[in-house]
């Protein structure tokens, strides 16, 4: 059987696991390509207008897989929990239903419920999937291989490589032979790029900002490079409810307090994302407390590389000047408070409230 996996949302974190798992069970896995204009446009067309961009992008990837008889089934687990008490964003919880309401014709969806409080649950889930979809396969072998693939992936990321550079074993991407990590040693500027994996690593969506930073000689740190164990130290009295949001916040604080001497924070958020409104504000407070400049880039479906690049350049310039000893510089002019929120979009917000009518008579 050919199983399709959309390269969107949580697959930026868990693709190695599920790819290996299905392959070991003898299925052919087809991963949708990196997000491109066609996929994005498709997603925008199919998805409900008020959704956040990443979920629209997911719709685009689903549309890609569903077209032209590419796959026999699409794998889209309902991710609920991965053992951190927090659940995923409600949009993840309602994902299968949203997707199936949006399309009239889809290959069958495989939608197990990923309530993975402990490793046993994960094994259990795998077992169920194996019984249903590959009765002759061996769940144990597949599970073990999948785990080790995932661990390897995690390690590579913690060493400072970017997920998109480690995924070519699982996808049809052109392998990147440049094995260098994105964190060069030396006295370069260090910037923490904080945001959800599916926004930070989707280079189409964010106008390739990571590579851009890299080219400018900036060392980039992302939330996923911080091991989960360290993040836990920053749990707060009342944690947020969403897994990825907590990761961003906690890892952000780890990075800010670490010996790395982070120079500034780029917060990548998404247009119309609910949790981000909270995360952004809290991050801002954390940065303020430590007197670190932060800039917020809000992505939407019309984000252009140009707009983002200018912002990033200006921000990095400011950091460089600040580092050169001209500390007081940051107290004047454009970055008067050291905080800046930039919404990179061209669509006017004026057309709210968005209303739509569905009537069938």
């Amino acid at each position, binding site marked *: 059987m050919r199983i399709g996996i959309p390269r969107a949302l949580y697959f930026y974190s868990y693709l190695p696991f599920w790819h290996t798992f299905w392959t070991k069970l003898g299925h052919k896995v087809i991963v949708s390509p990196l997000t491109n204009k066609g996929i994005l446009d498709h997603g925008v067309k199919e998805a409900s207008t*008020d959704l956040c961009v990443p979920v629209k992008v997911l719709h685009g990837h689903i549309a890609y897989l569903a077209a032209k008889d590419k796959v026999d089934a699409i794998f889209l687990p309902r991710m609920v929990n991965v053992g951190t008490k927090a659940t995923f964003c409600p949009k993840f919880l309602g994902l299968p239903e949203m997707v199936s309401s949006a399309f009239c014709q889809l290959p069958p969806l495989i939608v197990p419920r990923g309530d993975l409080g402990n490793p046993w649950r994960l094994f259990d889930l795998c077992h169920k999937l194996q019984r249903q979809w590959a009765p002759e396969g061996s769940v144990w072998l597949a599970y073990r291989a999948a785990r080790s693939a995932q661990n390897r992936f995690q390690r590579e990321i913690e060493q400072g490589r970017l997920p998109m550079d480690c995924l070519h074993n699982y996808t049809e991407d052109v392998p990147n032979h440049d094995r260098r990590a994105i964190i060069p040693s030396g006295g370069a500027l260090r910037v923490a790029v904080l945001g959800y994996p599916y926004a930070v690593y989707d280079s189409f969506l964010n106008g390739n900002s990571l590579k851009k930073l890299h080219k400018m000689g900036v060392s980039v740190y992302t939330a996923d490079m911080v091991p989960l164990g360290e993040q836990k130290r920053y749990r707060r009295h009342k944690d947020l*409810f969403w897994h990825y949001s907590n990761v961003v916040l906690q890892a952000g604080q780890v990075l800010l307090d670490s010996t790395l001497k982070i120079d500034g924070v780029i917060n990548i958020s998404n247009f119309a994302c609910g949790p981000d409104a909270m995360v952004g504000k809290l991050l801002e407070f954390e940065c303020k407390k430590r007197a670190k400049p932060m800039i917020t880039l809000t992505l939407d479906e019309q984000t252009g590389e140009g707009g983002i690049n200018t912002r990033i350049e200006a921000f990095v310039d400011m950091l460089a000047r600040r580092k050169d000893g001209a500390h007081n510089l940051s107290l004047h002019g454009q970055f008067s408070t050291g905080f800046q929120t930039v919404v990179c979009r061209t669509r006017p917000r004026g057309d*709210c*409230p968005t209303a739509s009518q569905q*009537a069938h008579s």
Partner: protein
Amino acid sequence: MFAELGHEVIVPPPPSKHTLDLVTKYAPEFACIPFKILLGTYLEALALGADTIVSTGGIGPCRAGYYGELHRRILEDLGYNIRLFIIEPPLKRPGDFFRTIMSLVSNGFTWLRFPVILQRVWAKLNAIDRVERASHSIRPYEVVKGETSRVYESCLQELDKACSLQEIRDAERDALARLASIEQDRSRRPLKIGLIGEIYVVLEPFANHNVQILLEEMGALADRSIYLAEWSRGNAVVAGEKDVKRAARPFLSELVGGHGVNSIGQTVLYAQQGFDGVIQLAPFACIPEIVAKSILPRVSRELNIPVLTLFLDEQTGEGGIRTRVEAFVDLLIQRRNRREGQVVWSGI
């Protein structure tokens, strides 16, 4: 309630445009409108000299549960030195609930009075709810436009003055009688429209631009799925609402927080009860309602009930809402006429 606990209570003015102007500066752009209105209300109360704020915290998985925390940090950041008490619903964490109340209780107050006060607050809430319901069932039939609203306003003032249980009961009886005596045209056949969505914007007329009254003055019978007392009962004290969740199951089996599942379930129930249409009210960028909205087309298709979704934020104008609602009502009337194969007088 807190006045009776021995504090001077500053009741902030009802939310207004000014409230929102205050907030837009400090709140994150995509925070939901309830968050912004609450923050604005706090700021107004602080300007009036309040030093302690009591508010309710929700439980997840939605942003409302985190409001208090973030509000406090924003206010602190603005340099206010205040005590912000967040009351969690008593069933979930009884300990916390009573500790918060305890720390608020000033000297010279006897615990014995506590149940009495609760009872009174409760009775008033319920009375207001009933009077309000009555007004909604009468308004679509009123002969003189706007009369119901006028009578209702003055009834509310009476109710507000009532203190003892007896007075509350009398005021309620009075109010109901006055409402019933409004001149009505019972030959109308109003459309039946259900209002669903996120609790705050459904309940707060300021946030939804009085959509319910707007509808009723157009001659439609609007049924609001949520009332204040009912909600406090359903969500804050006993966990209920099983039917709604069951109705939603075929379309959405996972709880998505907020009122997402309820919105779906109530649409299903309205469809089963033969309503002509449903209007979903949601704060802009509200996560659960967006999930619901993306699924509603399917419900609408399969159960043959039209749905209009209105997303509300501080930039929403009353005019915009009015045009959309009017268009929707027109569409429902046409639909009904077509179904009945004849042109009937529609009440607009």
